[in-house]
């Protein structure tokens, strides 16, 4: 229905999970939530077409979407969790060390406003081991921003999100999973999908530092996130609370079987159509 279904290779992961060709996922009969958010699961500006399902990560998001007038919402869980079911961690994996830090990122239409230098200093003061900075493609392509991190540690980028079904790095989440599994901790200055993915991949989460902001950002919403998920904000969190909270946001326990997912996405043999 919408090109956001292919962001981060979501459609490709779901196709692989369903036993279909991951290089050529069929058209999804609905809108897959393409990142954690505190609205109805749709991305900013997504032109929703009524009658088609929004396929969200969690029951909490479904309830919120209903309260916002969205009637066709089905919980399928995050594509990252589907990926985890297909990529069990190797038993002889090297020991994890250090922290992977995801600075708050902008995108094509909104850039981050804040002091990256001060951010790095606080990270290095907080973290014990080596720090890997993972930049979003938007910041990674900005030489000035990238260099401000490169001076203090390893800098990586998981790839391009994709747009209008073009240039999608379909291995984006695979790369993220591999990086997360190298690290003990996952941290950011904003609660975001990367933190949730990190918890699912076995990292200890942390959210601290100058939260920065996007130009023209809805700041009350950012404050609401800090109020609603206090257990996920701080430098050293109580994993007995933070872990289940993060997994719940990804829809842990709600994943559909391949056959059920095929039926939900309109991918059963009779219904399947090209992307």
């Amino acid at each position, binding site marked *: 229905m919408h090109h956001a279904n292919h962001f981060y290779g979501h459609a490709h992961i779901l196709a692989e999970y369903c036993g279909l060709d991951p290089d050529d996922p069929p058209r999804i009969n609905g809108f897959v939530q393409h990142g954690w958010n505190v609205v109805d699961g749709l991305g900013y500006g997504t032109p929703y077409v*009524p009658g088609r399902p929004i396929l969200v990560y969690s029951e909490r998001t479904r309830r919120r979407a209903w309260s916002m007038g969205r009637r066709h919402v089905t919980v399928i869980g995050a594509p990252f969790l589907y990926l985890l079911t297909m990529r069990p961690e190797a038993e002889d994996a090297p020991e994890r060390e250090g922290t992977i830090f995801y600075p708050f990122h902008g995108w094509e239409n909104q850039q981050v406003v804040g002091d990256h230098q001060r951010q790095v200093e606080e990270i290095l003061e907080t973290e014990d081991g080596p720090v890997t900075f993972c930049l979003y493609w938007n910041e990674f392509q900005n030489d000035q921003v990238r260099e401000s991190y490169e001076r203090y540690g390893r800098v990586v980028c998981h790839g391009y999100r994709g747009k209008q079904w073009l240039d999608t790095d379909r291995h984006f989440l695979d790369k993220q999973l591999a990086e997360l599994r190298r690290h003990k901790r996952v941290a950011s200055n904003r609660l975001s999908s990367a933190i949730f993915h990190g918890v699912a991949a076995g990292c200890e989460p942390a959210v601290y530092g100058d939260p920065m902001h996007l130009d023209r950002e809805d700041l009350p919403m950012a404050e609401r996130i800090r109020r609603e998920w206090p257990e996920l904000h701080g430098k050293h969190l109580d994993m007995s609370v933070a872990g289940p909270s993060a997994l719940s946001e990804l829809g842990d326990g709600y994943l559909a079987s391949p056959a059920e997912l095929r039926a939900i996405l309109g991918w*059963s043999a*009779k219904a399947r159509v090209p992307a």
Partner: protein
Amino acid sequence: MPSFTEDRPSAGGVLLGYLTEQVPDGAEVLVAGPHDAALIDALAARATVTCLLRSQPDAIGLESRGVRVLCGSLAKVTDESYDVVVALDGLERLCSVEGPQLDWVESLRALHRLLRPGGTLLLAVENELGVHKLVDPSSSTASQADSAWRPLGEFDTKPGNPGRLAGRLAAEGLAVDWLGAAWPVPHEPTLIATPNALQDGPADALAAVTAGAAGRAYAEKSVLSDPRRLAAAAVRGGLGPELASAWLVVAHRAPRPAAALSLPPVLIGDGPVVELAPGRDGVWTRRVLHEVPGRDLSALNGPLPRGRLLEELLLAACLRHDLPIVRRLLTGWTSAHPGAAADNVVVHEDNYTVPSFSVLDPSVPPQTDVIRRFAQTLIGGGYAHPWPAAVDVPTLTSILHAAAGLPGDDVEAGEEPPLPDSRREHEEQIRALRRQLADATTRAQWFERELGRRDSELRKARMQIAAFSGSVSFRVAKLGVGVARKARNRLRKGLS
């Protein structure tokens, strides 16, 4: 009445028949009001039967079969006396158009006078607030039937609940020996349970049995809303006696009964007759009292399966959007009893493992489309569920089929099961169709906009292609590529 025949069904069926079987052999019995011929014949074979009817054609028909008949009005029966009076049709059809029109209390007094001391009265009292009335699309006070010359409905003087009924009978000198709430329709109940059984017995299983009885009685019949849900909710919520279709009473004329009738706390009868009673260990046990030829009922003897009806558990989990529980119920169900419909399975433990699923009535033949039937219940009833974009039965069936872990993506179509034809569900379906139509219109507009945008992009790309293919630089480059290709081919020929 010479030119009148009763236009509503007579009291009958296997359960009312079973009640009359309790009448002692050789007793003198008055059967007051229209009763089913089979019931009268069975009673006449063991006792001396007199029937009171107001329709002359009906009376002639009955008399021709050798039964003594009094044709006329109850008010005119004065110098008779009986050991037993059977009034399982109620007291509303005992007076003809001629003569006094006795109300309920006056009719009761008249019947009381016909009983010998210690004599037994078998009486049915229709509940004007019973589920059968709540789902009835027509109003009994506006009936145009020939028999409705005085359509009193709820304005009659009869008592409105079992407690008041017992009190009224006591006030008239009749002591209640046994009282049962009858479901789902007064003239042919298929479930009779005492208020104690409904209060202290296996409420979930009784709710399931009541829903099943209502479903069968109202299959394809026009109703305001689904009687299965109302009946089950009433029994589960402790309102079974208050919302039953009728109350059945065995009473005797004071001071003491000449013959005591023995009746179990629960009787189930839709063909066979099954009693349900608590054993010494407190476990409710079924026992088949009357067999039906050609149907193996041996599995019905034994402890009643405990638990909530699977269909209700599934509906509740769907309404909560509790997908993990929906999936566990579906997989447990299809692993344990794949041929039993959701309204014939009970679940007694919250872990939903295979042993916690039991078939309520094992004598029902296995079905092949049980998942589809549940999908139809969800859509037909307008219930919220976790896949709201699946608005047709085949799509929802294929999702449920997959969620149940059954093999194969595509599910074959099945036949429409006979369900109550409910106006409320019709209204909901109309609202759903309106929403779908509005959504489809918006989608069509969106597709048109998308098409326009893509057409515009295509036009632009074609213009660019045409512009580049006609430019001097493009022609020079094309010539150069052609020359280079020829040179390469010559070289290849020379080398080979």
